[in-house]
């Protein structure tokens, strides 16, 4: 079981509050600090990663901007924090087949493939008639530090090898989370909004989530 904080809203949070929440998350042994919002989450995650020694997560929209931009942003963000990045993709309001192509190209680019994609909506490289001759393939460079950056897609089952990720309110109990996870590994991202709430949630949840035989008297 893993415990995350957030997603903290980068559209409105002040630097002072963000710093205090991130520090509280580290003190309360959260595994990851997540940021969300309508944009700019990867740049914010790169910034927060310099404040904390734990992992950072960004909720990012997928399907509107070119997936190569997203791949480049993910690669550089992961490199600047020495491989501590996690990503939750939030599908944009686009046709299902557009979304699938964006996800495919993003995955291929992040894998380091020498990419040539001829889809219905995307062609990479585009090799447009008005451009001069360009190479037949292209590759993302630099690539992320992690061999595979953990990437979830909102509303879909976790990719193979990753725990199911669930966003939960701040006042959730460990019993509720454990019931939700059943016997499966779970990753719970708790939306606490003050440093005190963060510390309380960490104290209440971290032990019971990590150990099935967590002794209740510790938190009494």
């Amino acid at each position, binding site marked *: 079981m893993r415990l995350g904080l957030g997603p903290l809203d980068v559209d409105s949070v002040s*630097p002072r509050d963000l710093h205090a929440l991130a520090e509280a998350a580290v003190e309360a042994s959260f595994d990851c600090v997540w940021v969300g919002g309508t944009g700019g989450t990867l740049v914010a995650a790169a910034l927060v990663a*310099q404040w904390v020694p734990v992992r950072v997560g960004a909720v990012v929209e997928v399907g509107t901007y070119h997936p190569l931009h997203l791949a480049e942003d993910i690669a550089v963000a992961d490199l600047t924090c020495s491989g501590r990045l996690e990503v939750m993709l939030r599908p944009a309001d686009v046709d299902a087949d557009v979304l699938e192509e964006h996800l495919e190209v993003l995955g291929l680019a992040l894998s380091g493939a020498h990419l040539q994609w001829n889809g219905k909506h995307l062609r990479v490289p585009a090799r447009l008639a008005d451009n001069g001759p360009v190479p037949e393939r292209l590759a993302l460079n630099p690539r992320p530090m992690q061999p595979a950056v953990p990437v979830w897609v909102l509303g879909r089952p976790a990719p193979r090898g990753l725990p199911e990720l669930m966003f939960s309110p701040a006042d959730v109990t460990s019993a509720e989370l454990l019931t939700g996870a059943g016997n499966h590994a779970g990753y719970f991202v708790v939306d606490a909004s003050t440093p005190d709430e963060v510390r309380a949630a960490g104290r209440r949840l971290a032990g019971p989530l990590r150990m099935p035989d967590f002794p209740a008297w510790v938190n009494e």
Partner: protein
Amino acid sequence: MRLGIGIFGMQSVPQRPDHHAKLYRDLLDDAELAESLGFDSIWLSEHHFWFDGYCPADLVAAGAILGRTSKLGVGTAVMLLPMHPAQKVGKEATTLSRLGEGRLSLGVALGYREPEFDGFGIRRKDRGKLMDALLPPLADACAAAEPAVPLYVGVATAVAAQRAGRLGLPLFADSTMNPAELREMLAAYDAARESAGMPAPATHALQRDVFVTDDPERDWAMLFPELRYMRRQYGSWSFPQSNGESVSAYRERLEADIEAKLKNLIFGRPEDVAARLREFEALGFELIVCRSQFGNLPRAGLHRAMEGLGSLAG
């Protein structure tokens, strides 16, 4: 006069192929050093799909620097705006300006390398039109950000300066222009600005290749291979090998370009460099972004140059 340090392209060059995880760790250390030396700002640049891993996401790297430092300005020199969705850039700049407490600046320019445009499905020939369409909304987003984000328009020609002049945006002048060319470019800018009825901006920024040394002979031997790599790379992007041109003829063309561009390098002892920089300040460039990082210099050499230049900044 404010001094910026750069230009960090984060290249894992063939002559020193460091892993990018190390290059970005070094960047953050260099930013801390720049802050302690009293530099106004540190500047990043951007290219895409190049074998040495040239930084393709300068705002992400800027975010990391803003997290690591507390007083230092951070800027893009330059972001290739036509390749980006303007709304995305505007949002990222707004977020970083708030979280970085007003320390972010944006320099934007056209871009020129065909495979980069093509990778994103953009026609290179549309770049001017795209710039015209993207600059006004980005300028609005930068002005509306809290704190506002200074936005500079990167220019290497009089035509590009006229585009910035019509919008009244300050310039980020390329390092390849000599003082006479800079004067001509500023005149074109002012004419376009005045006929559009725009007020003069408070300042312009200038990018310059600057390397401060206390031992020119030793440092030239270190510097030249990196400079040569950088100039050959930019040269090969600006004027690719033409059809039927032999490799040797093409290499001669690249070497001639290196010779020409070296004329604009400021290389010398601190007091000599200070005098040269004041000439450019007098032209109207209150912010001078000094490029002391070429390719991937040995760490100790780069730090010596930063300390020498920092003695003029602090």
